């Protein structure tokens, strides 16, 4: 699997992401600078987490207008895979590649902990390595992860199976405190209409090796690896 990680000023999870991509796929990721206008020939582009441009204006707002994002948009339009994690998810919504917006956590607190996600659609390029309904752990670390979209958009996402990951408790139940940020319908990760762009707030790249405390997050990378094979 050929992959690229986009690096913006203020991004800090780029190396974690590149490491996870290499651990799971066996090949090194290309690191692409935000001011570049072309992507290398890759199967998947990852927009990683961090604090691009210090979260100025709105999280992801400035990065979404960076020169490289036009190339990321063309890659998505060609059907190439795009994964956005945390700040990367915020950037993809700001760029219009995914609907909705990530607002300030309802608690107003930065959350940094392990959460449980339930796979509500295992029939996607990003989740096929998991079983439908499977519950797995991932770390979250964000202050603005409170997913919001208008009622009509949420209805569409739900109706089209585009809510791929949802916050739940250890038993896979909703409404019992598993949602760390107040996201509407406990939404943790969504897919675009074409099924080739996924954004999620949690950090699967930080749970791909036993030394990190588990391998729960591997499935996302393994799914994409299988999709491009």
């Amino acid at each position, binding site marked *: 699997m050929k992959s690229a990680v986009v690096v913006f000023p203020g991004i800090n999870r780029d190396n974690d992401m590149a490491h996870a991509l290499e651990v799971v796929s066996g090949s090194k990721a290309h690191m692409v600078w935000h001011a570049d206008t072309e992507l290398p020939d890759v199967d998947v582009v990852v927009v990683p987490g961090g604090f691009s441009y210090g979260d100025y*204006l709105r999280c992801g*707002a400035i990065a979404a207008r960076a020169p490289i994002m036009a190339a990321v948009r063309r890659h998505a339009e060609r059907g190439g895979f795009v994964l956005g994690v945390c700040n990367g998810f915020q950037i993809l919504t*700001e760029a219009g590649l995914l*609907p909705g*917006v990530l*607002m300030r956590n*309802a608690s107003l607190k930065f959350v940094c902990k392990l959460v449980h996600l339930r796979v509500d659609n295992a029939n996607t390029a990003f989740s096929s390595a998991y079983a439908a309904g499977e519950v797995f752990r991932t770390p979250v670390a964000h202050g603005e992860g409170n997913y919001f979209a208008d009622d009509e958009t949420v209805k569409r996402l739900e109706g089209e199976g585009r809510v791929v990951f949802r916050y739940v408790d250890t038993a896979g139940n909703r409404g019992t405190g598993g949602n760390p940020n107040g996201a509407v319908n406990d939404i943790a990760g969504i897919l675009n209409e074409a099924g080739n762009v996924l954004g999620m707030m949690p950090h699967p790249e930080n749970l791909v090796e036993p030394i990190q405390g588990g391998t729960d997050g591997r499935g996302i990378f393994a799914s994409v690896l299988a999709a491009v094979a």
Partner: protein
Amino acid sequence: MKARIIVTLKTGVLDPQGKAIEGAFKSFGLAGIDGVRQGKYFELDVAEADPAAARAKLTEACEKLLANTVIENYHIDLA
């Protein structure tokens, strides 16, 4: 031409920061202020002499960057 832009959250969008500010009023005993909604204020210089052209440019600035129209409204004032 100078311009001022105010970006506010749309009605119905939860504003936890506004709520926290409201809570702070209560915590130091200032009663009778509620419905706090936090927004953003921008001052800009536009290189246009024609108000209509300036407004068109600022509208593009708002739509493409200054406001996220999923959750925010914007208001443009030309000086």
